């Protein structure tokens, strides 16, 4: 028995505030389900998404099947190929949350049939918006396909006791450089088309453009026009797409732009926001990055009324965009009582004409311009029935001008990020060096010829030694060794190198590890309310002084979210109380896996992790603690230290182990104090000490300079 997923429109209405939604599609059903589960558990009002892959988009189920058979990674979920049963299982993990299928197809019948059978009811697109921008299907054919498919969706859902929902893609079209009035008109026209096919629950899209105030005007006009034209009894809402054009190339610029999307959604009165992630321009985002982006968007939107200087939709003058959109819609609807026919004919005669769209059924006489203030305007209105322009004439757009306009938003946010001194994230511009650095660490009973055989092996492999350190412990008769070497060796080569080293290691009974230093060390940072160590670590990472990547900050309090966001790092708030401890720890474990974290660093994280988790993270979990003598702990430590007149304050960075309060020490530091230090001064000294000691410990750990030796460490600093 297939359990239907939640009703999208009802869910949005019930939320009563901005609902966020990712653009998520993963080929493997288990991973797709994990993504949906993560969205359902994100702790925000969300709608889950299944985005189909490009084979399925163009109706090539065979291509998708072939790719699956070969184990190739698809860029979405092959819905038709997996079929309704598998899709239903995947969607079931949403646990009542609506799941929308996003696709991009000009002939969506098969996709709709599958989603109906899978118990789903929500999708998106449109006869124009999924035809003109993406391919060669003639518009008349797309209209016919969409007519059949929309009716079929409506009837199929009704038969299953569900309500079909369709969202227009008409508010996006080519993604950028389309003046808002045409987007608003297309969105409303496609909405009317859906209604004419019997769909009673729709959403109207609008894609963020170059100017936030202009966007809010457009959203106000969209709401007004929809209110006038959609018949009573149609349940409709407005959905904003976060910027769909060329994305900023710096991580910080991308973060700024995604924040701005959430602010425009909130101030423009959107009911739902399709969220982009900051890594969008570089690669497909991971599930965790998607979830972090959803949480960030929900948070930004929640405070937009206070933190953003943008006007809301009642404070803007939308008369110009409303007049243009109304003129377009009226002219189209006058062509035929059938909206599909009217759309087809409108493009044929140029009443509708999408700027820069190369499709044969689009006349292509219109052109767009970005005005000096950043607003989109018509450079050439073609033959569209727009009201007379007050002060604009048509101008030629040259190639270099077009290029600048396509990059306008990306450049604007990249520059803003630089101006705000937010430097490029670690993923900004990494190149793969021809030569790689490796580190070999080993421990074994001390014997003759170890160093000789190890270096001999490296020479055989044509690796040159960059740094070599060893320590023979006379009490335990153990040898500790760290060799850093350099050479040409691909990803496959590391595995090969490990294999080849095995005989040498076996000969001496070594415990050893071989690491590829070109693979960035990923450390999740956990924190409670004291941000001094967190801020120090993130600053060192950004300035390049600490060679790690921080994929996320996790906290049991929301207090330091802004600090993480300022550094452009996703922030996960996992509240912990007595009863939620196991589930919170499960969530943490999931994050560690999702982010493929090598290490977890506790920077004044005030909860105790379970012995099981500590055991799992042995040698990968680092903590910093205050070391005040004599044994001052508990509340008001600096006050008590001041009262006792302590002469030394210290900090200890150490590995956390399951059965020890304080595990193997990596680094300790101290400063002298005396009777003149106030409690506040003692606190400052101590915070600096903790931050610097922890930073050294994390650096040595990441560079594989720390070798565990029972309850102590050997550090080749």
């Amino acid at each position, binding site marked *: 028995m297939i359990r239907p997923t939640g009703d999208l429109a009802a869910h949005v209405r019930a939320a009563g505030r901005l609902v966020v939604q990712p653009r998520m599609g993963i080929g493997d059903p288990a991973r797709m389900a994990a993504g949906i589960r993560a969205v359902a558990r994100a702790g925000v009002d969300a709608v889950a998404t299944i985005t189909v892959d490009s084979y399925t988009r163009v109706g090539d189920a065979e291509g998708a099947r072939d790719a699956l058979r070969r184990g190739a990674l698809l860029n979405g979920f092959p819905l038709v190929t997996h079929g309704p049963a598998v899709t239903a299982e995947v969607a079931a993990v949403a646990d009542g949350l609506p799941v929308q299928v996003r696709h991009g197809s000009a002939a969506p019948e098969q996709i709709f049939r599958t989603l109906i059978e899978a118990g789903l009811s929500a999708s998106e697109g449109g006869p124009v918006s999924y035809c003109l*921008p993406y*391919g060669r299907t003639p518009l008349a054919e797309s209209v016919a396909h969409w007519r059949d498919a929309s009716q079929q969706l409506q009837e199929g859902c009704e038969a299953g006791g569900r309500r079909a929902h369709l969202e227009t893609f008409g508010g996006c079209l*080519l993604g950028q450089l389309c003046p808002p009035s045409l987007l608003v008109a297309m969105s409303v026209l496609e909405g009317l088309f859906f209604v004419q096919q019997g769909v009673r629950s729709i959403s109207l899209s609008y894609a963020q453009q170059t100017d936030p105030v202009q966007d809010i005007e457009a959203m106000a006009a969209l709401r007004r026009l929809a209110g006038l034209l959609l018949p009573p009894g149609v349940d409709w809402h407005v959905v904003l797409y976060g910027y769909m054009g060329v994305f900023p190339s710096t991580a910080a610029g991308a973060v700024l732009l995604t924040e701005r999307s959430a602010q425009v959604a909130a101030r423009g009165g959107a009911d739902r926001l399709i969220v982009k992630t900051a890594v969008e321009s570089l690669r497909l985002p991971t599930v965790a990055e998607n979830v972090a982006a959803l949480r960030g968007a929900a948070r930004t939107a929640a405070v937009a009324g206070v933190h953003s200087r943008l006007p809301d939709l009642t404070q803007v003058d939308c008369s110009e965009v409303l007049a243009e959109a109304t003129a377009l819609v009226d002219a189209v609807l006058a062509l035929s009582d059938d909206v599909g026919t009217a759309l087809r004919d409108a493009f044929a005669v140029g009443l509708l004409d999408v700027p*820069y769209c190369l499709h044969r059924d689009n006349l292509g006489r219109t052109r767009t311009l970005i005005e000096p203030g950043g607003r989109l305007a018509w450079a050439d209105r073609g033959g569209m029935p727009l009201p007379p322009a007050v002060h604009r004439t048509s101008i030629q757009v*040259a*190639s270099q001008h077009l290029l600048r306009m396509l990059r306008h938003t990306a450049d604007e946010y990249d520059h803003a990020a630089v101006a705000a001194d937010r430097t490029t994230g670690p993923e900004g511009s990494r190149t793969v060096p021809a030569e790689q650095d490796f580190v070999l660490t080993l421990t074994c009973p001390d014997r003759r010829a170890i160093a000789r055989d190890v270096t001999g092996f490296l020479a055989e492999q044509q690796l040159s030694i960059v740094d070599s350190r060893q320590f023979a412990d006379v009490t335990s008769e153990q040898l500790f060794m760290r060799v850093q070497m350099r050479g040409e060796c691909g990803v496959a080569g590391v595995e090969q190198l490990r294999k080849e080293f095995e005989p040498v290691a076996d000969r001496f009974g070594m415990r050893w590890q071989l690491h590829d230093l070109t693979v960035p060390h990923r450390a999740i940072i956990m924190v409670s309310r004291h941000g001094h160590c967190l801020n120090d670590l993130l600053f060192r990472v950004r300035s390049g002084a600490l060679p790690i990547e921080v994929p996320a900050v996790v906290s049991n309090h929301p207090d330091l979210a802004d600090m993480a966001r300022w550094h452009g790092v996703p922030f996960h708030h996992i509240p912990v109380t007595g009863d939620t401890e196991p589930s919170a720890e499960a969530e943490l474990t999931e994050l560690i896996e999702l982010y493929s974290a090598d290490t977890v660093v506790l920077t004044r994280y005030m909860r105790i992790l379970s012995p099981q988790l500590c055991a799992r993270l042995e040698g990968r979990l680092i903590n910093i603690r205050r070391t005040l003598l004599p044994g001052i702990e508990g509340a008001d430590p600096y006050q008590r230290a001041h009262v006792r007149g302590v002469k030394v304050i210290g900090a200890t960075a150490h590995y956390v182990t399951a059965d020890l309060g304080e595990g193997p020490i990596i680094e300790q530091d101290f400063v002298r104090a005396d009777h003149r230090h106030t409690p506040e001064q003692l606190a400052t000294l101590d915070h600096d000490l903790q931050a610097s000691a922890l930073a050294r410990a994390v650096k040595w750990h990441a560079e594989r300079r720390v070798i565990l030796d029972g309850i102590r460490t050997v550090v080749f600093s």
Partner: protein
Amino acid sequence: MTARPVAGHVLLSTVSSDSHTWNLVYLQLLLEESGFVVTNLGACVPDDLLIDTAARTRPDVLLVSSVNGHGHLDGARLIRRVRADPRTRRLAAVIGGKLGVTGDDRPYVEPLREAGFDLVFPQGADAGELPAQLAALVARGRKQNEARVA
């Protein structure tokens, strides 16, 4: 506006799997500004459509632009078919864009040339030099034609 001599007729296209068009819009403008006449085939162009159009309209040069990362695969297949068809065997042909998914297109340059392209512009190549390079190809092609006729 003064009329400029036609620098040549460019058939501008992408490969069959590529739905991107902003690159095509830009290249059309760039080439028109340099005096070329451009036929722009738009998104997702099937090999047959491209070859038939080329045979029918007899352009001076075929310019293929692809940015979806499949250019090294689809482009090689396409140009072999262009070279195998007697009607387009001698057509000057150029490809460029983002030809692979790794960000480093250099490994694809030689194979694409061997497959039959006259010029290959890997990712990061300067589009500003394109008009001059196409003009040189057009001139070379016309000279060869004259030689054949003579």
